[in-house]
């Protein structure tokens, strides 16, 4: 690989992360993190450890309280209209989906494409249909989000984040509350996306997920990190996670897997 290809797509130096609701309340400090293209990171932490805020900052939705956060080499503080193209290389999936309840699932998925490429619904329909098919959402496409279960809402949110073919995919606790079938489907698809899915031309996608239960990510995540006591600790690979003596890691590994049939 050339040097450009190896350059970090996400880079944080001495970053302090503020809470989304109140930026002055610091949830993480001194974060130093570098993510190379195509890496698959699983960032674990307990509830209220700042996982969502960390992901929001990574996506460039808020500036760090202190330090420097770069996406594709550009400081996220300077992210504005002029840097919109770079910002769109980042797809973000929220916990629960946060879909637009007034729109159908098809409209939700097509919206980013329509907006950024100024397309009519008819012009955006083929791309949306392909993605809906890939994510097995076609039968539900004309329903509004409130009329489908959480499992499918989460998938629709993934489809919406993927429609612009991002280079980085950030997912906030994507497996929370999923049924067993959906859980395995998600792990398989995220692994495929990370390795390079046919749908995106075999191009590996950088994936970062947050979780409060490490166990499902055993065979999916390839790099792990822990958020604890307002600090960011890179853990290494799965073997390092299993051998870690950190009590919180043990706790996150011991959480019983929630299966909703």
């Amino acid at each position, binding site marked *: 690989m050339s040097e450009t290809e190896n350059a970090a797509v996400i880079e944080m130096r001495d970053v302090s992360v503020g809470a*989304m*609701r*109140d930026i*002055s309340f610091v949830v993480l400090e001194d974060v130093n993190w570098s993510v190379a293209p195509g890496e698959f990171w699983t960032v674990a932490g307990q509830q209220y450890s700042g996982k969502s805020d960390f992901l*929001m900052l990574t*996506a460039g*939705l808020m500036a760090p309280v202190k330090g420097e956060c770069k996406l594709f080499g550009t400081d996220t503080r300077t992210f504005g209209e002029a840097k*919109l193209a770079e*910002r*769109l290389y980042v797809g*973000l999936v*929220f916990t*629960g989906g*946060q*879909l*637009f*309840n*007034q729109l159908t699932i098809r409209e939700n998925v097509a*919206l*980013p494409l*329509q*907006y*950024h490429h*100024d*397309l*009519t*619904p008819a*012009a955006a329909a083929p791309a949306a249909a392909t993605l809906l098919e890939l994510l097995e959402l076609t039968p539900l496409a004309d329903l509004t989000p409130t009329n489908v279960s959480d499992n499918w809402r989460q998938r629709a949110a993934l489809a*919406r*984040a993927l429609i*612009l073919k991002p280079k980085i995919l950030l997912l906030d606790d994507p497996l929370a509350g999923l049924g067993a079938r959906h859980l395995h489907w998600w792990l398989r698809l995220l692994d495929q996306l990370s390795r390079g899915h046919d749908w995106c031309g075999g191009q590996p996608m950088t994936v970062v997920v947050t979780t409060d239960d490490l166990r499902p990510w055993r065979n999916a995540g390839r790099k792990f990190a822990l958020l604890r006591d307002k600090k960011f600790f890179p853990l290494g690979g799965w073997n390092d996670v299993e051998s870690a003596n950190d009590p919180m890691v043990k706790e996150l590994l011991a959480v019983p897997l929630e299966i909703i049939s």
Partner: protein
Amino acid sequence: MRENLAKVLTLTNTQIFRRAPLPKSYTDFLGRKLFLFLLTLQGLAAFALITLGVLLRKFQTARNVIRPRIRQEIARAGVALLPMFLFVALALGFLVIGQTVSALARVGATGYLGSTMVIAVVRELGPLLAAMLVLARVGTAHVIELGTARALGEVEALEALGIDPVHYLIVPRVIGMAVGVFALTVYLIIGALASGYLFAFLQDVPLTPGDYFKQITEALNWLDFVLLALKTVAFGFFIAIVTCYHGLAQPLRLEDVSRVAVRAVTQGVIVCVLIDALFILLYLVT
């Protein structure tokens, strides 16, 4: 914003407590109200300017997404309210104008009919009533929709998708409401004047339709049309700004939405009255 407010309130309380002889509770109350009023005014002005800026700067952006939304908002704040407005126009004509016409006829003052109708209906009652009805029907819905969207994280979702929430959520509502209030005011005035004459006719007032409408047209001048258009567009614009500001401009939880809706409607009424007062001054000056 909230932090700044807290700082300002703390500072204000201390200063007034030191300097003023009034009991602390009164000064606290007045100080809080005054600073809240000023901060809200500042927030509304900033929000209005931001919205105007986005409206002008992104007029050509994502037309295929925004224009259908504008049409949808015009339908909601205008066309959908037409039946209710026709009913109100009939009621206004029967209850107010018809009685005014017959009262003027009884004292032989039908010569003042045109100017009375223009001042009462065209300049004042029509626009203000239209604005109040749109505020009640559509403005409240704006606050609840946007407040709920904000509380459910839909605004953050828009930002994550690189979609400007002001452009996508606010601009169509502002345009829709400005056009809606203007159009509905015109229908309300025409309906009220026509039904008012109908009521007078049923009471055997000796006034032909030709005389009635001739007096009204003679009492109207070009300035009435210009100021009516400006006033109704201003009503629509500011109602949308106030309701959208309260729904969108600050982080909300679901339990905050109803409280914010009440506050937005109250401030919407105040803003409309202030705009109306401003236009009365304009009428007096011109």
